[in-house]
């Protein structure tokens, strides 16, 4: 049944349906509404869980880690500076191979201080060993959150669900929340084989010297690569029970044979999708919605890039001094193709700059007129506001 829910409220309700035993969080905009809504569920007796209101994001991640390691389903959420403050713990959680779920309400990183949406925060921890799934709308945020618990628990790799701050978290949309019975059928009770238990004492987090560290990293890398199958399986099982799919690791909107493609992650996909419908076009274009950024779906992406001549990689973050982040990985993938597309890499919508629907025809025009592939540009920068040397 559809109900009008704010993105954060929908995510909170989805988390509640997954029956976490411990939720730990620290307030930060734009994540706060998620935690507030979970707190309300607990206060109203609709969710039996230990809510730990910690003194920092660092402790939020640590508390969730402790709980998950002790055999209880754990959840936390954060944004921006909070994700960075968690950074050390995030690497630790994945290295310990402890499953848990974190919602990242994507927000820019300071300085300058900015509370609005881009994806610099989750990009900053892209190599922390977490699965990263990006949501195009709030229905996907709900469905991905529920799937994330199963993916994490099957693979023993933690999952970060990336939901664009404000654009999604603070927007009301008609949402179909699955029933508790459906979620219970999809998601079995939490089980962690190496759980801390005084009846079966184990040591977790021991010191590993050069003799075995390499192998430990290798296993972690393989586990992330293997999780690709679980991401797809969870999505299809979810579709079987609840009747909706999120597209596995990636999905394509538009004709498969299109020679122009735009690759994007997160809510900008919804904007582009609508743009494709509104603006009548002479050119055939397809949109590649990258849902799994970690693991990076090399094979699936190469498959959908076959026959593409012009590819726009659109992203919401910058690697200063280098350029695009996603773009760089797509470029390295393209080197393995027989006839790779020309790749135009743009950042857009940094720090909450509005990404209007007109971005779609402007992008198409830019790449079809380009004589050279665009290595990297910030598409919506207004250079005339800047001193000459910065233009």
């Amino acid at each position, binding site marked *: 049944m559809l109900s009008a829910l704010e993105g954060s409220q929908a995510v909170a309700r989805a988390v509640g349906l997954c029956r976490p035993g411990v939720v730990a969080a620290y307030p930060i905009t734009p994540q706060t509404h998620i935690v507030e809504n979970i707190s309300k569920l607990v206060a109203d007796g609709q969710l039996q869980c230990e809510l730990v209101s910690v003194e*920092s994001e660092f402790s939020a991640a640590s508390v969730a*880690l*402790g*709980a998950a390691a002790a055999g209880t389903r754990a959840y936390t959420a954060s944004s921006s500076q909070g994700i960075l403050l968690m950074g050390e713990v995030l690497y*630790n959680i994945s290295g310990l191979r402890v499953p848990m779920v974190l919602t990242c309400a994507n927000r820019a990183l300071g300085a300058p201080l900015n509370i609005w949406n881009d994806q610099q925060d989750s990009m900053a921890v892209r190599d922390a060993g977490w699965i990263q799934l990006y949501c195009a709308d709030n229905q996907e945020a709900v469905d991905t959150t529920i799937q994330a618990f199963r993916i994490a628990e099957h693979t023993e790799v933690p999952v970060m669900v990336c939901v664009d701050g404000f654009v999604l978290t603070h927007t009301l949309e008609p949402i179909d929340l699955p029933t508790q019975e459906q979620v219970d059928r999809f998601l079995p009770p939490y089980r962690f084989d190496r759980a*801390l*238990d*005084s009846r079966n004492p*184990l040591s977790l987090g021991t010191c590993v010297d050069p003799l*075995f560290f390499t192998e430990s990293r290798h296993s972690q890398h393989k586990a992330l690569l293997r999780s690709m199958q679980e991401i797809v399986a969870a999505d299809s099982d979810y579709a079987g029970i609840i009747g909706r799919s999120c597209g596995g690791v990636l999905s394509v909107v538009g004709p498969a044979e299109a020679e122009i493609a735009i690759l994007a992650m997160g809510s900008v996909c919804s904007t582009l999708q609508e743009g494709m419908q509104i603006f009548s076009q002479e050119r055939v274009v397809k949109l590649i919605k990258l849902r799994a950024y970690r693991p990076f779906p090399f094979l699936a992406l190469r498959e959908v890039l076959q026959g593409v001549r012009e590819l726009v990689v659109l992203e919401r973050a910058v690697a200063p001094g280098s350029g695009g982040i996603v773009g760089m990985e797509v470029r390295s993938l393209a080197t393995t193709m027989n006839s790779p597309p020309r790749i135009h890499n743009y950042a857009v919508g940094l720090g909450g700059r509005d990404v209007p629907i007109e971005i779609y025809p402007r992008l198409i025009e830019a790449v079809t007129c380009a004589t050279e592939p665009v290595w990297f540009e910030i598409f919506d920068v207004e250079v005339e506001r800047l001193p000459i040397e910065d233009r």
Partner: protein
Amino acid sequence: MTIINDAAVDVEIRKAVLRSKLKERHGVEKSFPRRRKEEPALAELRERQPAFRGLEAGHRACQGCGEALGARLVAEAAGPDVILTNATGCLEIFTSPWPQSAWRVPWIHSLFENSAAIAAGIEAAMKHQGKATKVIAQGGDGGTFDIGFQALSGMLERMHNVLYVCYDNEAYMNTGIQRSGSTPHAASTTTSPAGQERMGKRHLKKDLLSIIASHHIPYAASASVAYPRDLRRKVRRAMEVEGPTFLQVHCPCPLGWGHDGAVTIEVARLAVQTGLFPVVEFERGEVAGVMPLRNPQSVTEYLKRQNRFRHLFSNDPRAREEREHLQALADRNIEKFNLRGEGMDPLDSEGADTVRRGGLVA
């Protein structure tokens, strides 16, 4: 069932006498340290030698390591139904070189500064699972006084049912003896070296226990590895409490302090007997018990045994000044906690309750 025997009556009489003395001293009725409740006979004491060893022998600590001894005593007294967390540091490193582990109880190490937060998460999980397993967080002084302080304060404030044990060896020993917030004034470390211009650490040892006590937690105490019976009693006392408790265990580090590994206990005992390390108990922020010093020693006796204070015995006039300064700090502790007591002798490591050595006690 209460068994009344002569020994018990004797203890009751002694308690009554001491209670009146305490009242005389403080002007009000003071809650009585629980230690006095138990005064078992020698044979009975031997009976009660702990049979469970949470931290097994064969780990890689240095000879005479105070922290290893402290952790072993804590794990013994706590028993098997516990989950331990460990901050990064010596204890974590020497007990868990993969694929070995010296721990016979569930144990987790995550990071340097989150031992208390990991413990809080485990405790929340235990609560959710309906289990009574006690959670013990462990850290060195660096992980407790300095980098892990925020997580510790948060855990205490939220009243998690966690016992936090700080093994205080007064510097970052694992990384090579750098000064911490716990390093005593004038001690020479690799980052507060004594030299032409400096007489070691310029700042004071942080009064952590008072800060912890100010969280008004049910129980916070200091202890020393030189007094194992007192330490074990405090662990058991903390284990009984529902809520956050804290133990600061003074542990000499032969390497960092510059003394022979064979005199660890002697050095630790002098730290207490000089008043430099007061052994005290707080309940809900109020002093609830102290280990009295019948015959306080001069701090010189303590300082001269350790190379970290060697520069305080040079001809430099500042050396004498710093020694006097340290003596004044010790005197201040004695006065503040009223340590110059006439109470019972501290039950120290000499005598019946010495720690049994060797392999696993069957």
